């Protein structure tokens, strides 16, 4: 009997060409099954019908640096409306030769945001630099000190106003929200009842009704002779509104804390304030960072509502350009432009929130 010995290594069979590489990918991801195949073909057809004409309209036939009249003669998009009115759309009525100030303020804001993005930079000093930064931004906008020309707040407009409303809105709404959430979780019936009433009342009504209240009723609340400017009033409405939403988010974090944490703090002899300050809040607030960022996103989007009470935010400056007879009829281009601005802002925030969520949950494992 002779033993069989395989002398040559067996020939390696390659997987069939239809299962690997580009073809395999296409088969597995686009044409697996008759239903998906039909879907893919139909989708490609629709894309083919929509995208090339849009591309042609937006880039090939478009005009970038012409007058409105020239645009009307053409068939493509009229991006000249942005090009010619760029500074008005962004800065509104801010004095033309002083517009470097809001620009610088925005750079400071973006710089701080960019620096705060990394969690290893989070420290007490970052908090202080935010406070200083906010103060400097306010100073740059308002002027009147250090030889800066004073600018009336009625002239604040455009992107700086949008950013101001959302950044200050969230900064002030955050402590309010935390206090409300603590009140809602409180053992004291009366306090709890008040906080629930406030939160549910605010969350049940649209922001626009609060803005109306700020613009029409709020002046009646104040004693004679005292007036508060429109921007501040709208800002108060946004803070009161956002605060209720933040309270609900923070409540989620507080409820996620196990009883053991409270009991441990109690057994150490900490009082309520120290329990919250040292044990509960640091953990609870950390859990709710991602949903807080989504509140920031919606607060940023919601600032666009101040158009309705005639504040000159980004949307309003754009609309006023559109009401100029020379540029009438190019709403699509103008709205697409500011949609891109809003999209960039929100998209970077939501991307950041997703990244943060991953990092934070990685720490848990």
């Amino acid at each position, binding site marked *: 009997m002779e033993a069989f010995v395989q002398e040559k290594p067996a020939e390696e069979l390659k997987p069939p060409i239809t299962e690997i590489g580009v073809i395999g990918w296409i088969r597995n991801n686009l044409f697996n099954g008759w239903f998906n195949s039909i879907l893919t073909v139909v*989708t490609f057809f629709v894309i083919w019908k929509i995208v090339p004409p849009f591309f042609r309209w937006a880039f090939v036939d478009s005009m970038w640096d012409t007058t409105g009249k020239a645009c009307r003669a053409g068939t493509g998009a009229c991006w000249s409306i942005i090009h010619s009115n760029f500074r008005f759309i962004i800065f509104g009525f801010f004095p033309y030769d002083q517009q470097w100030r809001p620009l610088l303020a925005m750079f400071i804001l973006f710089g701080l945001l960019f620096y705060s993005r990394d969690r290893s930079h989070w420290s007490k000093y970052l908090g202080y630099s935010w406070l200083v930064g906010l103060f400097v931004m306010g100073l740059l906008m308002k002027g009147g000190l250090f030889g800066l020309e004073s600018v009336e707040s009625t002239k604040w407009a455009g992107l700086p106003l949008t950013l101001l409303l959302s950044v200050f809105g969230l900064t002030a709404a955050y402590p309010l929200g935390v206090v409300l959430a603590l009140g809602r979780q409180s053992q004291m019936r009366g306090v709890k009842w008040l906080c629930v009433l406030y939160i549910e009342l605010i969350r049940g009504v649209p922001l626009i*009704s609060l803005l109306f209240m700020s613009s029409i009723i709020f002046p009646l609340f104040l004693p004679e002779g005292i007036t508060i400017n429109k921007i501040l009033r709208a800002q108060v409405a946004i803070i009161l509104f956002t605060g209720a939403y933040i309270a609900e988010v923070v409540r989620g974090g507080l409820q996620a804390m196990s009883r053991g944490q409270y009991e441990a703090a109690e057994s150490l002899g900490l009082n309520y304030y120290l329990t919250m300050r040292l044990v509960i809040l640091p953990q609870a607030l950390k859990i709710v960072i991602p949903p807080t960022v989504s509140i920031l996103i919606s607060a940023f989007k919601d600032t666009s509502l101040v158009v*309705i009470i005639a504040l000159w935010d980004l*949307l309003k400056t754009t609309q006023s350009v559109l009401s100029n007879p020379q540029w009438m009829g190019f709403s699509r281009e103008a709205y697409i432009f500011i949609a891109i601005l809003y999209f960039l802002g929100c998209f970077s925030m939501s991307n950041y929130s997703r990244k943060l969520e991953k990092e934070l949950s990685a720490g848990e494992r």
Partner: protein
Amino acid sequence: MATSQNEAFIEKVPFWLDPKKRAIMFQIFIFCMVGLLAYYLVSNTMANLQKQKIATGWGFLNKESSFEIGESLISYSAASSYGRALVVGALNTLKVAFIGVVITLILGTVIGVARLSSNWLISKLAAIYIEVMQDIPVLLQLFFWYAIFYESLPSPRQALCPVSGLYLCNRGVAFTIPEAHPAHKYMLLALAIGCVVVYVIRRWAKKRQDLTGKIFPIFRVGIAIIIGAPLMVWLAFGAPTAMNAPQLVGFNFKGGITVSPEFIALLLGLVLYTAAFVAEVVRAGIQSVSKGQREAAMSIGLRPPLVLNLVILPQALRVIIPPLTSQMLNLTKNSSLAVAIGFPDFVSVANTTINQTGQAIEGVALIMAVYLVFSLSTSAFMNWYNKKVKLVER
């Protein structure tokens, strides 16, 4: 001994260190502060109102409104009262909210499922849609659609006509409806009766299945009854097929139904925006059901539709419904942005009322009250439904 010592110790605690009494004092303090603030605001307001000679009260509701409202579900003219105008506004808000919610649910579910599709192209397109729509303010979207309508569409005389009987122009969309006929009333009645019958049969079928295990083809029979009953009535009336097509008369369309550009822009903006959020909710809900559930269901021999119906959906719905409720409420609240594009919803009518009568406090209070009623009743209904679909854990 020990207890008496304890008692003595407790007695020694002064009242400002007793947590219970402290809590009571703290609450009294808070209530006093809130009360003082309220008193301060109210007294200021009263003084200001007196100075500006504005009479408070609800008397204005009975006065003649003397403004026109573009579209209304009930009869209304400029001679009607402010109260009636506000009812018209509230009904318009409800109309937008109801139609919007129905379309949003369908579109959002489709996109959410598409996001999970094994088809790469579909899934990526859904992802792009969700991301883009979520990141653009809804007000901007409303302005955009409204601008598309009044800038890009032609006047009624050159109206676009993609399908016969459907006209698109800058005055809105006009489409054909069946000519009014007495049969329609009875068809509606037949539909309602059909729904009740199907409900009864369903209960009976479920009971029978629980007792005997026999399955009744409830889906097919139900569809047959719901479609069949009105169809029979229609045939019994001699199958009236007269159509009421829109005709160009003068500068506008007569006949058929014309939907205003404001309404369409509002609906389009709200639906496209909210559907992105609903899609995310649906996706998260479906993903929350573990893979093992599907595999277990398939291994006991259920067919794919039954797997979805009996195993996946009941569990996914439990996760989906609470966030879905808040999205539906968001849509209702966002419908108040109609005021920006001139659709006569409640906020818009109330705003006009405030401007004409100067009754700012009453007007804003009404706006808040109406939306609170909408919100609270919707969340009450959804809580009830949520309890119903909740899995009973044994």
